[in-house]
């Protein structure tokens, strides 16, 4: 991994790095497997849902032990939930936990959860590392001692005790984390005795260490390194290189509050004038999947028949003419005294974003726009986005594998109007609102497919955002590592560490 670990308390983190390690130390109620299906983990079976979609009944296994020998019970699950919603805790996100109305422990190994309103996306969040079950008997003490507050840097965060396949042995800050197989893991002791997570910030050094065998698994390799990894394989290194599309998509959002972006022809024209496929082929070396909406091909809700915009600058100019945008003396198009001039903002330091900016500027200026470029480092970029102080903004969203995208497209999620949500573009569409609302209430997958197919159709037609590509994940592992099954969801590739073995 390239970034330092911040904390090993699963309650207090959501980042992918931490999740990689936490998957080893902790267990979750359910898992999402590589086929993106739910599997019970700490549960005997997947929860039963009541008719009205409000009540979920869970039954726990009774043979699960924490690393200190204590049994894991429903009290621990309840406590974990309480920690997630406690006001003072350094929990990053409470969104999914705030949907819970009532949590009732019925006996040591079963409990019931009632929601305020039906929401089928909700269950997914019990499957990720940040919903790992923590031992009440250890964490509660720290919580009470600090005035009912868990700090990311507390004792438990440095010395976590979970019920997962591995125990923490040593955590050398900025250097490595060493785990050892847990004898009493309920599925049986894992075959691989020790696992080390090394923290190596420089991607070239990481590649060198992978080549020399100082590291065995190179996860989250940058797209640019895919070729290098493949050539290692071709040169005889005994490795397997995986590349697969995931749920993270890069996109350019329009600020729809601005008059110049209110004609959908303008947005479509800009999409026609951007050579998406060539961009993926050259800039990303093919390590990416074209996006036409926000739902990736790996999703069960993916609609392959939506409108696509293949590169066609002539068509773009035509659309602009039709919409009344005519070239002025300096070649820049105007309509009602408004010039088609804008700035593309992005996060500094990401080569793909920078190339997108450069290419877009060149191509869009050719069809009569005037384009300025601007890149900010992380915090400044965050400010531009959340204050909605941008024209066109380029970045990536990572979504869960459920196709619901209410926080991003529903009109009640426009922050400057409702004080909540992440619809920074300011997109409003009654039909989309209706569909998204309906999608949360229906659990039948076939019916949901129809709903989300229509959402994608509308998005591809209206283009509140230019969808560029779905990032492909690249991971390389030794070819004698058995049962390594890459997982495109936020469950990460360490989701089934307990099954790994050398052969």
């Amino acid at each position: 991994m390239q970034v330092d670990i911040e904390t090993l308390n699963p309650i207090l983190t959501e980042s992918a790095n931490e999740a990689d390690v936490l998957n080893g130390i902790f267990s979750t109620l359910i898992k999402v497997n590589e086929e993106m299906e739910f599997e019970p983990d700490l549960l005997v079976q997947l929860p039963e849902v009541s008719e009205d979609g409000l009540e979920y009944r869970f039954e726990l296994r009774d043979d699960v032990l924490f690393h200190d020998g204590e049994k894991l019970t429903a009290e621990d699950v309840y406590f974990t939930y309480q920690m997630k919603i406690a006001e003072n805790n350094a929990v990053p996100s409470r969104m999914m936990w705030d949907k819970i109305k009532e949590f009732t422990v019925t006996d040591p190994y079963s409990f019931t959860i009632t929601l305020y309103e039906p929401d089928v996306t909700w269950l997914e969040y019990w499957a990720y590392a940040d919903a790992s079950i923590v031992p009440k008997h250890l964490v509660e003490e720290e919580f009470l001692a600090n005035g009912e507050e868990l700090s990311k840097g507390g004792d438990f965060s440095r010395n976590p005790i979970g019920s997962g396949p591995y125990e923490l042995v040593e955590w050398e800050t900025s250097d490595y984390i060493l785990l050892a197989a847990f004898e009493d893991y309920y599925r049986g002791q894992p075959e691989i005795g020790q696992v080390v997570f090394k923290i190596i910030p420089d991607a070239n050094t990481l590649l060198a260490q992978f080549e020399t065998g100082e590291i065995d698994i190179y996860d989250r390799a940058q797209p640019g390194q895919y070729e290098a990894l493949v050539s290692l394989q071709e040169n005889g290194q005994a490795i397997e290189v995986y590349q697969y599309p995931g749920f993270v998509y890069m996109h350019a959002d329009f600020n729809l509050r601005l008059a110049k972006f209110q004609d959908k022809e303008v947005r479509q024209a800009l999409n026609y004038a951007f050579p998406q496929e060539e961009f993926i082929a050259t800039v990303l070396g093919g390590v990416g999947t074209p996006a036409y909406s926000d739902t990736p091909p790996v999703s069960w809700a993916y609609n392959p028949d939506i409108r696509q915009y293949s590169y066609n600058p002539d068509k773009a100019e035509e659309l602009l003419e039709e919409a009344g945008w005519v070239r002025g003396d300096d070649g820049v198009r105007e309509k009602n005294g408004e010039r088609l001039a804008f700035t593309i903002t992005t996060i500094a330091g990401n080569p793909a974003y920078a190339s997108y900016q450069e290419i877009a500027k060149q191509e869009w200026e050719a069809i009569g726009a005037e384009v300025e470029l601007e890149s900010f480092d992380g915090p400044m970029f965050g400010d531009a986005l959340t204050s909605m102080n941008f024209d066109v903004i380029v970045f990536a969203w990572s979504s869960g594998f459920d196709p619901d995208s209410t926080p991003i497209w529903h009109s009640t999620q426009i922050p400057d109007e409702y004080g909540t949500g992440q619809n920074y573009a300011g997109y409003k569409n009654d039909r989309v609102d209706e569909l998204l609302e309906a999608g949360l209430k229906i659990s039948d997958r076939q019916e949901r497919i129809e709903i989300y197919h229509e959402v994608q159709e509308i998005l591809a037609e209206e283009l509140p955002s230019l969808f560029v590509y779905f990032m492909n994940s690249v991971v390389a592992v030794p070819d004698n590592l058995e049962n390594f099954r890459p997982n495109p969801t936020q469950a990460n590739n360490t989701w089934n560490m307990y099954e790994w073995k050398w052969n």
Partner: protein
Amino acid sequence: MRNKIVRRIAMSILSLLVISALTFFLMELAPGTPVSRYADNPRISRADRERIEKNMGLDRPAHIRYFIWLRNAAQGDLGLSYMTGQPVSQEIMARLPATLRLMGASFLVALIIAVPLGIYSATRRHSIVDSVLTAGSYLGLSVPAFWFGLILIYIFAVWLRWLPAGGQMTPWFDPSVFPPFTRPFALLWEYIRHMIMPVFVLSLSLVAGWSRYIRSSMLDVINQNYIRTARAKGVPERKVLYRHALRNALTPLVTLMGMDLPAFFAGAVIVEQIFAWPGMGRLFLSAVTNNDYQVMMGITMITAILVLAGNLLADLFYTRLDPRVKYEG
């Protein structure tokens, strides 16, 4: 003398105060807060960000936060990191030894190489060796550390497989597999092996600068009257060079070393990044990218203290070496 040192220390404390205020309010003026990094995470809502900011105490005005920081810092408490929730002093202490080890070794190696090279160049001026060394030192000064570091990694780690590509120790290294009396050596070698490349890269730029400096100050000294007198009196050349000339030529180098410290810290950031060295430079880099104000403040203060102390020591040392220099507070 003692009074002057006390005055000097008082000045240093004042400098630290000014540095802390400048750093704090400059960070405050820069856009973004520690929670801005959550902006492009669709799971973290605006309400979440406001709650986190409030928990961090960031909803209070900046000048109040500064005085709180100052009061705590005066008692040795540098606050909690916004990223990890760990005390900043602990975060720094976890990494400072690695940084000091790397820097100390590089300073030492640079000194050991630069001094003889400088003398050799000075005494055999315009020889082929001198020209080669001159060219070499320009190369050393102009080669970027990250490029040089990667080249070394490819040669010695990937190609020859002699040295590890990064880290400061093999995670599963267990000295007990060695016979008891060799264990300390095995452990020492484990450390040294990981240090060779980063120390070499880091000392290279110093060697280049220092050897040029020693060369020219040696040349200066050699042409002074007292050297000529010594030679005329028949003192052996070796003794003239090493007893009389070198001592005087080296004195200014001490000041130069003190002045090099801040730039050296900056250079260490890159080297730590490339060689995955778990030091302070990387902590600082991640603190900057994530707006972790507390950690940035902490590191800035620790670095300022080290640099001020380094310069103070250099000056004191200087007055010892050259009694002509009077200590001016």
